[in-house]
């Protein structure tokens, strides 16, 4: 075990392994374990200032820092893409401070930090998925007082949330919420899945991987353990529906992955491509193999 750190010691002398100091990690680690014991409950933690602005994943990066080990293979995605500024910066940050291996392949990664997507490729046992969360409290826009929302969770008093969903139906004929669609975790706490598209909600249910959530500015950590029941809120007569743009990816042709809409010409011509860049690459390769045969 000692040898591992001796082999990889480039920047570890400058920073503590994975940037955060040991005391901070202990505090975060205690919060993470309690979060795993109480699925969906938001555990307060004393979030640290990180070398990046709030809203760029300060919560996720602290959770990743507390979980990272030298032999991890890290993947970072932002809206499904490995090559956007946020993803590239965070990946570089941990290459520098923890000297871990990195990958863009979902199946090769042992720890994935994500902003607003769940990878299309199915996750495996003992993989960790760390979500960056802006507003961890699903009731916050309905009730601004923390003292009240805390009581509502304690009493499982979620009527207000159902009224909100009902009002959507009354106004629009269907539930308008398309991202950050609230879920009930382990039949108990209503939980914010972070702003993932509701297309991704079903992937949270009964997932073999470990799902951890970090909200830096709001100072909350929560978790969904593997094989946990995660149900998107709905009504018997208006059941939950995962939804995506009804097109094919114009790069790989996939019709079952979540699509981004892009404008490709000055006169507003639209095209759709996979939001998960790794999945898109994989499908493209599969297609070209089939053509070769």
């Amino acid at each position, binding site marked *: 075990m000692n040898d591992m750190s001796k082999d990889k010691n480039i920047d570890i002398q400058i920073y503590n392994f994975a940037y955060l100091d040991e005391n901070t990690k202990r*505090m975060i680690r205690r919060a993470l374990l309690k979060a795993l014991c109480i*699925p969906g409950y938001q555990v307060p933690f004393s979030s640290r200032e990180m070398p990046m602005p709030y809203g760029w994943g300060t919560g996720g990066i602290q959770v990743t820092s507390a979980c990272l080990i030298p032999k991890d293979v890290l993947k970072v995605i932002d809206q499904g893409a490995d090559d956007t500024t946020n993803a590239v910066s965070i990946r570089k940050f941990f290459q520098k401070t923890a000297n871990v291996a990195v990958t863009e392949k979902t199946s090769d990664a042992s720890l994935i930090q994500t902003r607003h997507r769940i990878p299309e490729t199915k996750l495996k046992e003992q993989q960790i998925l760390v979500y960056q969360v802006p507003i961890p409290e699903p009731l916050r826009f309905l009730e601004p007082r923390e003292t009240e929302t805390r009581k509502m969770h*304690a009493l499982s008093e979620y009527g207000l949330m159902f009224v909100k969903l009902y009002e959507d139906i009354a106004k629009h004929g269907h539930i308008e919420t398309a991202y950050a669609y609230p879920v009930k975790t382990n039949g108990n706490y209503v939980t914010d899945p972070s702003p993932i598209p509701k297309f991704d909600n079903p992937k949270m249910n009964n997932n073999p991987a470990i799902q951890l959530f970090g909200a830096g500015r709001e100072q909350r950590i929560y978790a969904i353990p593997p094989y946990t029941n995660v149900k998107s809120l709905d009504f018997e007569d208006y059941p939950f529906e995962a939804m995506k743009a009804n097109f094919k990816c114009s790069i790989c042709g996939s019709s079952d992955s979540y699509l981004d809409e892009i404008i490709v010409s000055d006169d507003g011509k639209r095209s759709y491509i996979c939001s998960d860049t790794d999945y898109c690459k994989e499908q493209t390769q599969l297609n070209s193999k089939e053509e070769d045969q």
Partner: protein
Amino acid sequence: MENNYPFSEESINSSISFRSLVNATSYPGRHFQISKLKKPNILSNAAATILITLCDNESNVYLSKDFSTDEVKDWLIFNTGAIVSDKQNADFAVGDWESLLPLDEFKTGVPEYPERSATLIIEESNYKKIKCNINGPGIKDKLQIELPNPELFINNSHLYPLGLDFYFTNDLDILSIPRSTKISVTNSEY
């Protein structure tokens, strides 16, 4: 020079230890392994690892009977700054099963803050082991394990989302039973 710190390389060893704890807590009822460290003889490697990885000067630790020795206290306080406390205030408790009973003196959290509850580290001893089925978060379908006094674990899971969280430690081996785990006794003789 040989040092006397529990971990030879603190930040690396603690991260690897914590990862085992994450896995153990995420997959209740399964055995996970941790590594050796420098610790008092009476403590198992697994129990010592939990204390060193998680405790600091904000942690109240209850040491039951045999574990409440000067050697353990000095080691714990010197290396973590933790506070040796009574049962009622304990965030962590270490001991063999019999010595930790009754469980209802430990804090189980309050509805607004269910995480303010004790974590019990149960060292391997000669308690009566009874076959139980467990299911719930972290468990695919169900698992069969052996627990002492299953009725106490069943009571604990009824307190959910409040309750105690358990780690069973045996040398390098660690197994977790969090409050979210549902327990049923398989054998009708019990």
